[in-house]
């Protein structure tokens, strides 16, 4: 009788120890996965919490939230650095272009220079400085973003308004009726218009929009079947001044990202596009 009891206890203890070791290994694997993500500078852990004990579940949720906050801060720092740089750059450039533009205007008026080669030369200088001015002018906007006025509004209405402008693109919208987001209406319209315009210019004929609500965040996935973005360009598209278009100013996506970041959200290019599409942008906003 005693031996049976001893054996039972040994088995139970062994089972318990075995389970503990196994469970600890699972936790180590989790830590390993998160560390790998960190190595790739990806702070957005979204590890599931099934199979965890209560304390562990709370810790994992904390890690998920911490990662998200860090990612947000990193994005914000990047945007702020660009804002500061842009502000100083535009100020210096505009100050220096001013005498070029103004003196040209003054000289071109002089009657003795009309129809002379000097006059033509001055015209060329004036035209070039005008072009530079309008280029830099669009960047002044980047440095002066107003504070967003958030309201909870129907995002589908905004999308329908934008879609009606692009009649040669089919819009495939996957969202529940009355899908709302908490954001600034005008700024969101600007961002979505920018993404749709880029898609249009990349030759897209179909745009897909998917609305998701998860973990206190609203996600919008905007995909298009136009020219995919090469991995070389993918790292640059949100950088101010970067553009692949001959007439582009390179401000669209950097401004859009700044708008989303200023509302506590994120705008990223998905590494893998949604099925049947070449490009997917993801907008994540807090609810």
């Amino acid at each position, binding site marked *: 009788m005693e031996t049976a009891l001893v054996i039972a206890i040994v088995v139970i203890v062994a089972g318990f120890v075995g389970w503990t070791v196994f469970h600890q290994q699972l936790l180590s694997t989790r830590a390993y996965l998160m560390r790998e993500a960190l190595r790739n500078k990806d702070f957005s852990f979204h590890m599931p919490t099934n199979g965890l004990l209560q304390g562990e579940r709370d810790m994992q949720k904390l890690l998920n939230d911490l990662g998200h906050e860090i990612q947000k801060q990193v994005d914000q720092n990047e945007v702020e650095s660009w804002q500061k740089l842009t*502000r*100083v750059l*535009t*100020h*210096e450039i*505009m*100050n*220096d*272009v*001013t*005498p070029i*533009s*103004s*003196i040209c*205007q*003054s*000289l071109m008026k002089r009657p003795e220079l009309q129809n002379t080669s000097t006059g033509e030369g001055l015209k060329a200088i004036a035209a070039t*400085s005008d072009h530079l*001015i309008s280029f830099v*002018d669009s960047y*002044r906007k980047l440095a*002066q973003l107003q504070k967003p006025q958030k309201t909870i509004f129907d995002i589908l209405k905004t999308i329908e308004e934008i879609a009606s402008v692009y009649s040669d693109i089919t819009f495939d919208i996957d969202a529940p009726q009355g899908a709302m987001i908490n954001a600034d209406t005008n700024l969101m319209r600007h961002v979505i218009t920018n993404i749709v315009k880029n898609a249009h210019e990349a030759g897209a004929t179909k745009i897909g929009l998917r609305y998701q609500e998860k973990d206190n965040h609203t996600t919008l996935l905007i995909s298009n079947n136009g020219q995919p973005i090469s991995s070389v360009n993918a790292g640059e598209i949100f950088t101010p001044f970067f553009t692949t278009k001959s007439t582009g100013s390179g401000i669209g996506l950097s401004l859009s990202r700044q708008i989303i970041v200023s509302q506590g959200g994120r705008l990223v290019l998905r590494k893998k596009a949604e099925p049947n599409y070449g490009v997917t942008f993801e907008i994540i906003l807090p609810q």
Partner: protein
Amino acid sequence: MAKYKSILAVDDNKAILTALQFCLEGTFEKIITLEQPDNILTLLAQEEVEAILLDMNFSLGLNTGQDGIFWLQVLKRKHPNIPIILLTAYADVQLAVRGLKNGAADFVVKPWDNDELLRKIKDAIDKSNEVAPLEEVEANHLQKAVDKTHGNLSQAAEMLGISRQTLYNKLKK
């Protein structure tokens, strides 16, 4: 067309002062330029000017427009009748509003269009030279007081420091 007499331009960028000289020489007889605002008051004690063009930022790296607002306030206190036009490289609405609230006559963003700059300067000078006839000023003021009291003449007269009868007579005119 008679030229305006003199104007003062203050900007730490020499090339901009040159540009202003080119731009203004057809309209002003004398163009005084300063690269630093420090001696503005001494200069104004010796020279009479019809308008002042004031840059908003004077130190490299200090891009907040603070310097400009400070000098604007000083000038408005010491020479309240000289119109001041602010120049800045920022198209910042808030900065513009601050400038206007502090008494600037107008606000010009760099780079400017020469003709527009001239127009703004001339308008500012002409406006500040306008002296409205006393009757007109008085009539407007009386009307304001009456509006404020919603037609209650006794109250309005009290606010204006005159008798009700006097007010009534003035309004009848």
